[in-house]
């Protein structure tokens, strides 16, 4: 009896193999192969050329700018994401559904349009652009514009990660903390934040990966001034268009490496704190 028994939800061996095989083939074709291509292309002319092409002033400038933009956009989006998800999960107010929809907007709008919005807002023909220029503040085709576009494109990541988590957790723990005499600040740091820390961290990783990798919106507002307003993805494209394959792929491999590091970090976190993650997933 037992040897022939199969759980009703288990598929037969061939079906299992087919499904696993299909997923693996798909992954290999669409994920591993391109990644492998990036790295082989980058190292095609040897490690020396690879390192040299990363050390050119333009490449260095692009790397610095990308890091700077991420360093500004990610913390801002963390603050915004925590505020928004706190408001949505813990209070009842008019326009809540509207706010949730708004948060999703950057996901549903093409990045090119996100960029164009800022051109309209701060361009030469706008009201804001010339006014700010009179104070010597350049937004478009300068670092502020790139930062703004990046914030716009990446702001759903943290909020999206936290809203369901905080809604699920409700306000019970906060009420308990307050009834024990904690003030709002203590409640946030000692109770709310620890409850959401894994979701928050995950949101930050995704947000960071996108902030560094964003192309469309940034391309529109940056003006692509070499050595000044080109981020890594823009620099990659420019180098590629100039038939400078080795340099383009060297920089691209750095971006790909970032994706891999993100993935590894996430896996390490899940492995290291798996129990705690599971414990904080739902109400105990």
């Amino acid at each position, binding site marked *: 009896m037992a040897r022939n028994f199969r759980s009703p939800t288990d598929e037969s061996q061939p079906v299992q193999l087919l499904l696993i095989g299909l997923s693996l083939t798909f992954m290999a074709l669409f994920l591993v192969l391109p990644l492998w291509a990036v790295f082989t292309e980058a190292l095609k002319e040897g490690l020396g050329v690879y390192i040299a092409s990363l050390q050119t002033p333009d490449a260095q400038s692009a790397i610095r700018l990308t890091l700077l933009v991420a360093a500004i956009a990610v913390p801002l989006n963390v603050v915004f994401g925590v505020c928004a998800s706190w408001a949505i999960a813990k209070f009842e107010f008019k326009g809540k559904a509207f706010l949730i929809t708004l948060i999703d907007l950057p996901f549903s709008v093409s990045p090119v349009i996100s960029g164009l919005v800022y051109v309209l807002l701060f361009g030469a023909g706008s009201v804001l652009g010339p006014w700010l220029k009179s104070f010597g503040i350049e937004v478009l085709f300068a670092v502020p514009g790139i930062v703004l576009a990046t914030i716009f494109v990446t702001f759903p990541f943290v909020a999206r990660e936290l809203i369901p988590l905080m809604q699920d957790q409700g306000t019970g723990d906060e*009420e308990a*903390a*307050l*009834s024990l*005499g904690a003030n709002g600040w*203590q409640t946030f740091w*000692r109770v709310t934040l620890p409850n959401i820390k894994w979701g928050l961290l995950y949101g930050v990783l995704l947000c960071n990966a996108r902030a560094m990798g964003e192309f469309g919106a940034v391309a529109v507002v940056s003006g692509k001034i070499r050595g000044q307003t080109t981020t890594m993805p823009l620099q990659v494209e420019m180098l590629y268009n100039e038939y400078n394959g080795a340099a383009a792929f060297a920089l691209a491999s750095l971006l790909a490496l970032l994706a891999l590091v993100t993935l590894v970090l996430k896996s390490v976190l899940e492995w290291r704190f798996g129990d705690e993650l599971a414990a904080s997933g739902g*109400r105990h």
Partner: protein
Amino acid sequence: MDVRIAKVRKEFDRFPALHDVSLDIHSGELIALLGPSGSGKTTLLRLIAGLEMPTDGRIFFGDIDASEKTVQERNIGFVFQHYALFRHMTILENVSFGLKVRPRSSRPPAGEIRRRAMELLDLVQLSGLEKRYPNQLSGGQRQRVALARALAIEPGVLLLDEPFGALDAQVRRELRKWLREIHDRTGHTTVFVTHDQEEALELADRLCVMSQGKIEQVGTPDAVYDTPSSPFVFGFIGESSELPVTIGSNELLLDGRSVGLPASSGTSGPARLFFRPHDVELTDDDAALAGEVTASRRVGGTRRVEIEIGNNGQKVEIDLPFDHPAGQRSRISFRPRRWRLFDVKPQA
């Protein structure tokens, strides 16, 4: 500490949850707010705690008007139905939390905090589990941690919201007895919310029975059980059977026939007769409640018999000893030993 609730009204988005409720809670007593869901009992508890603000009315802690005070200023201990333990903290950290968040001026030294937390864990019989996390404890243990955590801040009033609601029957009974013992030892003024009348009757010094945002009756378990002040209380507390009767010149009539129960003089006309199924006596008298047995089932040590009485086929239940010969009969005559009469509902 005495707690006085004076004409408190609470509306949620104009929907009234409490109508002008007044209640005096005596220092050191264990009082139960009892009622079906939607009766406003939890709202009243949260108003006392300061987790909600009243739309109107005042709440006094002793002589001090606490109505405008925040939950932190009221110094209450609150135990939640789903415990609300901090899952990322150990049991010891949970219990110490209330002392650790105090401002520096009133915070005891770390050693003292630890000593007091351990003492409380000892009180709730959880010594040895202080390094565990909440998800490593059973439901009953978690609720005991929640109580220890609430007691740690030396609250003036202890408030419990359906404290045993999420536990299974066996654990509930144990914790009930245990809570009574803790109360007798610590003497905190304690208010607890429950929809379980058995729990309220067994545990509380006084009951406050609520229905539809109003207080129906406040009194000792004996008083509420033996002399319910309204049909709702009679029906909600304990088992009850109801019959529509008419008050005659000096006795009660059912379908024009005497049922052998005297009526107090004064009123006359239709009324509702309430009695307890176990508080009846069988009789051969003609003047009695008599009817056909329609169902009979064994309930623990007794037999519950359903009897159809009167021309309208009113059904009532009475209890007989399980081996009583009358349990086999198809027709039974009985009289309630104790009963109460209420006016017919205005709309009925």
